[in-house]
């Protein structure tokens, strides 16, 4: 997700569109990315965090979390 202090004009545009479509009560929208990785059992959390930090996200502008499903 874009860090809170980073202006997210795409999210703002979505929030504006929701209002125009009659969906009341949505104060704000933030747009981010979601990646699904199908990994072997041997891939540990540390590796997944490395993948997230080094490739999937840019820590300068984005916060990220890793979840196993």
């Amino acid at each position, binding site marked *: 997700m874009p860090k809170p202090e*980073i*202006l997210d*004009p*795409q999210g703002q*545009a979505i929030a504006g569109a929701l209002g125009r479509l009659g969906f009341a009560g949505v104060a704000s929208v933030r747009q981010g990315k979601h990646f699904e990785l199908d990994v072997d059992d041997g891939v540990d959390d540390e590796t997944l965090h490395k993948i997230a930090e080094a*490739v999937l996200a*840019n820590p*300068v*502008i984005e916060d990220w979390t890793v979840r196993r499903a």
Partner: protein
Amino acid sequence: MTRVGVITFPGSLDDGDAARAVRYAGADAVPLWHADTDLRGVDAVVVPGGFSYGDYLRCGAIARFAPAMASVVEAAGRGMPVLGICNGFQILCEAGLLPGALVRNAGLHFVCRDQPLRVERNDTAWTSRYEQGAQIVVPLKSGEGRYVADASTRRELEAAGRVIFRYVDANPNGALGDIAGICSADRRIVGLMPHPEHAIDPLTGPSDHGLAVFTSVLDTLVGSGT
């Protein structure tokens, strides 16, 4: 003759104009391929604009892992001048050669216009031929050109005189502090969103104001004896 490399990635668009600008400036333009680690003995490198790897993931995020970029990072560490234009600027930021990041324009629209800029500093490898404070006009064409950085990075850039180009008149993309281009701490790596390589001859661009970027680096290289 001074040799300036221009890297071509899959999706690069402006490598042709960048090479032409290098030749106009009086240097040999050496084509470099993204998949090669060999920089072919060049004295400086231009990372050109375009949409490397389709801008997949984030602009510049895949290109930074290209074999050629590993060589560029290594050579930049030894002081080789590097210029990143537009997508090239994004790649240099993703590669960690320059601080901050480029994100979607505040107005969401792709901006394509002849853009007035102020040259804030002429003490870099790529701006020595300009007069300090000179106002120039070069094309800007980008959808993700809004420069962002955290507050401490911005303070550091401003305090060290590392903001090199600033948008004048209206800010076209919401960039922090009207920042259009910055340089590295050693002042040999410069990245900017506008395109000096498209403004080297009034016949084919809005001005010839961009040519001095490419002649500047030749002065730098001759001056340092490389």
